Structure formats: structure tokens, C-alpha cells
């Protein structure tokens, strides 16, 4: 990796530090599953569910810390359990917004309770734990944790690709898909479990409060740039990984900028750019129609 990138001159110092290598390894896996899962989250209009799961991630992680267990145990356990629960409650694997909001408002309150228990029990040294759960600490990952995060990221990504076809069918036309024998409910619950895993993964990188940006922004950008589903899925994944790399490199170059901010800002700028491009294409700036009406939208803008 270091050798091929040496051409760019400024990259090797980034990989000179073990913590940066760990961050890039974990970040790539996390971004890959975030982009792919996010594509379907946006398509299925479940962004609010992702928002809820991010708060559950916070509570789960702090509950584990308060109980003296490994942070990741609570993180993955809580998000997957709540995701599956939400899928079971709602018909066809979707829950009502007010119900979701009520549950996660309470979850957050519990998280605050666990935070106060944890900070009053642990002797001073770990007062920053709450902050790193909320805003991530990708530069603080150990080599083992980074490998595990990359591996789980790759597995979630593979899981999404595996169910991509039926899930796409079920998301676009539920009634027809059900009639054709696609197991809508099981797919919805399975997908939410994958969203839960992704939320737990991403919390390690950008934190519980910011993971929604990495989930929604690259995916929404991909939806703006192409309507072709598999191209969009690939694009969302690529954009998420791009945002992760650019963000990590930026925070390396400018140390006062925390990596979580740089990653989310890059993803949001990508989305804004994609929206502007899409808007311009729709208004016909590329095709040059006489009254701003688009004659033909060029390839690649509207797949």
C-alpha cells in the first residue's frame, strides 16, 4: 500500500504512523459498509431509523462501560437488538416515526444515566469516554480493534451485496415483490440488523452523534448522481470510502481539525456537490435547451 502511494509524495508520512495505518484499515471497512447500507437506508426512507440507532449505540456503549465490560459488546448488542426489535414491531419491518422517537428519547436518557454512573465510578482517567463514544476516536484504535472493525465492515458489506437484489425489489415495489414470493418481512428485519451492525461499527470511527452523516450523505449523493441501482450502490460505497480517506488525510495535515469533523464535512460537501450537479443537469446547463429545459441529460448524471 505504502509503495504504490509513494508516487503522490505526501502520502507516505501518513502511513508512517501505526495509528494512521490502523485508522485507514478500520476506516475503509467501516466506510464500505456504511456506504452500501446507507444506499438502502435512503432508498427505503429509513434515515430516521438510522438516527435512532445511533443514539442506541451511545447508550449501549456506555452501559457496557458502566458495567465494566468491553465497549464493543454493548455497542453491537444494543444496536442489533433494538434494530431487530424495531423491525418486529412495525408492519413489514418498518416502525412509526413517533414510536421510534419516543424510544430513542428514552434511550438517550438512559445513556446519560450510564455516563454519570461510569464517570463517578471510574477514577478520573476516563472522563473522556463519553466524548469519544459521541464523537468517535478513529485515531485511537489499536491494531487488533482496527482489524476487527475492518473484518466486520467487510462482512456487513458482503451481507448487503448478498441480499441486494431481493431487497431492492422489496424496497421499490413491496406489493409486487410480496406477490412474487419475496420474504418482505424477513428481509426488512435482516436489513435493519445490518443497519444496527453498521451503526455500531461507525460509532467507533466518527462517533454515535455523527454516524448519520456517513450513512446518509454519501448515499444521498449517489441517489442524486444516478438512478441505476447497482451503479448507485457502488457509487455510494466509493463516495463513503473517499470521504473517509480524504477526512483522515485532512486531519493528519491539519492537526487541529478532528478526524470525525473532517470525514463528515467531506461527505456533506460531496452531497452538496452532487445536488448542485443534479440541479444543473435538470435545469439543462449541460444540454443547453432553449428555455433552460433539458433536452437530454448526459450519461452518468442520470444513469
Amino acid at each position, binding site marked *: 500500500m505504502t509503495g504504490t502511494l509513494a508516487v503522490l509524495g505526501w502520502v507516505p508520512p501518513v502511513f508512517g504512523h501505526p495509528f494512521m495505518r490502523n485508522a485507514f484499515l478500520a476506516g475503509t471497512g467501516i466506510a464500505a459498509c456504511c456506504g452500501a447500507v446507507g444506499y438502502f437506508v435512503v432508498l427505503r426512507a429509513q434515515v430516521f431509523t438510522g438516527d435512532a440507532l445511533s443514539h442506541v449505540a451511545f447508550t449501549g456503549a456506555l452501559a457496557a462501560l458502566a458495567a465494566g465490560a468491553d465497549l464493543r459488546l454493548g455497542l453491537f448488542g444494543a444496536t442489533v437488538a433494538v434494530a431487530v426489535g424495531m423491525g418486529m414491531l412495525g408492519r413489514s419491518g418498518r416502525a412509526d416515526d413517533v414510536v421510534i*422517537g419516543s424510544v430513542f428519547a428514552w434511550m438517550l436518557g438512559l445513556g446519560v444515566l450510564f455516563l454519570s454512573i461510569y464517570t463517578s465510578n471510574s477514577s478520573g482517567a476516563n472522563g473522556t469516554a463519553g466524548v469519544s463514544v459521541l464523537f468517535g476516536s478513529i485515531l485511537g484504535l489499536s491494531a487488533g480493534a482496527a482489524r476487527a472493525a475492518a473484518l466486520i465492515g467487510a462482512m456487513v458489506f458482503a451481507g448487503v451485496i448478498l441480499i441486494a437484489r431481493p431487497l431492492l425489489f422489496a424496497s421499490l415495489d413491496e406489493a409486487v415483490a410480496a406477490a412474487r414470493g419475496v420474504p418482505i418481512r424477513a428481509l426488512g428485519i435482516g436489513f435493519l440488523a445490518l443497519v444496527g451492525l453498521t451503526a455500531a461499527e461507525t460509532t467507533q470511527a466518527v462517533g454515535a452523534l455523527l454516524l448519520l452523516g456517513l450513512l446518509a450523505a454519501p448515499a444521498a449523493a449517489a441517489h442524486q448522481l444516478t438512478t441505476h441501482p447497482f451503479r448507485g450502490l457502488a457509487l455510494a460505497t466509493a463516495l463513503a470510502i473517499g470521504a473517509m480517506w480524504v477526512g483522515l488525510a485532512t486531519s493528519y495535515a491539519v492537526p487541529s481539525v478532528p478526524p*470525525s469533523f473532517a470525514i463528515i464535512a467531506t461527505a456533506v460537501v460531496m452531497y452538496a456537490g452532487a445536488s448542485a450537479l443534479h440541479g444543473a443537469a435538470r435545469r439543462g446547463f449541460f444540454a443547453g435547451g432553449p428555455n433552460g429545459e433539458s433536452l437530454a441529460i448526459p450519461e452518468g448524471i442520470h444513469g
Partner: protein
Amino acid sequence: MTLFDYPFMINALRAGTIVAVMSGAMGWFMVLRRQTFAGHTLSLVGFPGAAGAILIGLSPAFGYFGFCIAAGVVIAMASPPVGSALYSEESAVIGSVQAFALACGFLFVNLYHGNLNGLTNLLFGSFLGITNGQVLSLLAVAAPSLVALGLIARPLLFASVDPEVATAAGVPVRLLAVVFLLLLGVAAAEASQITGSLLVFALLVLPPATAQVITGRPVLGMGLSVGLGVSVTWAGLVMAYYTPYPTGAFITTLSFGAYVAARGVRVLNERARSHTAGVAEGALT
């Protein structure tokens, strides 16, 4: 000494009451209009506002109000009519705005090199150390906002329940939506200063959702929502006074308990009613 002998507790109860009344009333419409996601984002946006204001040396109150109101306008402008096909796209906009705003808040806190206690207070609030001046300024903002809500309540109700018929009847649905999100932003900014950005949403969503489970009648429901909000806030404050645990945990748990109880009672009632109906039917045949 009882807890009413401490000026800080009196001020906390006063401020909590103002905030709970405001959130209960605004939240009732938010739940009715199914704008929970927008409300959640509005309540979080106060955090970067306050952090930014501290960074440039202003009072956090300016940041809370500035950012929450601005975000309310942005969301209102960007949102399509309720229930349209564009919804999934717009919720992605809201989600991205929310994450970006929080990321900015984190950046500001980092740039400020502030202590982490400050960050926790911005996020989770602090009922302690509220001054008389703060209570008065909360009241000064809450009173006109509630009057404004009262003035638009009737057309807003109409526009929320049936936007198409309301449009046909000449109600300015879109303008009302903007004004409402503005007021919701003000309510979120008010509450943020007391409960912190992360817990505002609990006061905005839980008491109103409970009230709407109990009754569909607007005036009664709104009154119930305000009453519940005030009771859980008072109970939460008192419990936090006697225990080492944070107020937010008590307020959210109590109001969530009320919500679950209300839903449970309704399910039981419906079952009893369908049972009675079944018996009556059986008697007739």
C-alpha cells in the same frame, strides 16, 4: 432545609416549568404533523450554535437561538409538502444537515480547547446555577412564542390534519409550516439551555405523544401534554436533587413510562370494547 429553601432549586423549577410548557405545546403540533425527525434535528442544532458562540466570545444563548431558528427556516424551505414522494430524499437532507451541524459543534469545542465538562453541559444540560436573569429571559421568549402559537393554532391544526382541503379553503399552508418550524426552533433553543441539546427532544416528543395516545381532542390533548411535561420535569428535578443521578435520566424515564402506560391502557380498552361488542352481537343473534 427542604429543597425549596435553595434559590438554585427554585430557579431550576421555574425554568423547567417554562421550558416544559413551551415544549408540551409546540411538541403537540410536531407529533401531530409527524415532524419528529425535523424536531430532533432542530434540537441538536443548538449545540454547534452554543459552541460557536462560546468560541467567538458571545453568550451561548445567542448561539442557541440563532442556530435553531436558522435551521428551522432551512428545513422549512427545503421540505416538500408533508407525505409527498420526495420524503426519503428530504430526510437524507435533514440527516446530513444534522450530522454536519454536530460535527461543526465538535470542531468548535476542539478549537476552543475548552474543558470537556463544558461539552457535557452543552449536550446534557445543567439545571444547576440558573440565574434569575436567565429565568426572566426564558419567560420573555416563551410568552410571545406561545401567544404566536395560540394565534396560528386553528389554521395550523386545519393545515396539519388535512393539508389539501386546507389549501383549497385558502389557508396559507406553506407559510404556516415555515412559521411553525420557526416556533419549534425557538422552543428547542429555549429547552436546550436547560436540558442540553441531546435531551430537548425527550420533552418535545414524549409528553405530546402520550397525550395523543390518550385523546384526539386538540385543546384537551395540548393541555394534557403541557401538564405531563411540567409534572415529569418537576418530578425529575426533585428526584435528581435526592439522588446522585442526572435529571435527564429521570425526566426521560418518567415520560417514557407514561407513554408506555398510555399505550397499554389503550390496547386494553380496545380489547375490552371489541369484547363487549362481540358479546352484544352474540346476544342479538
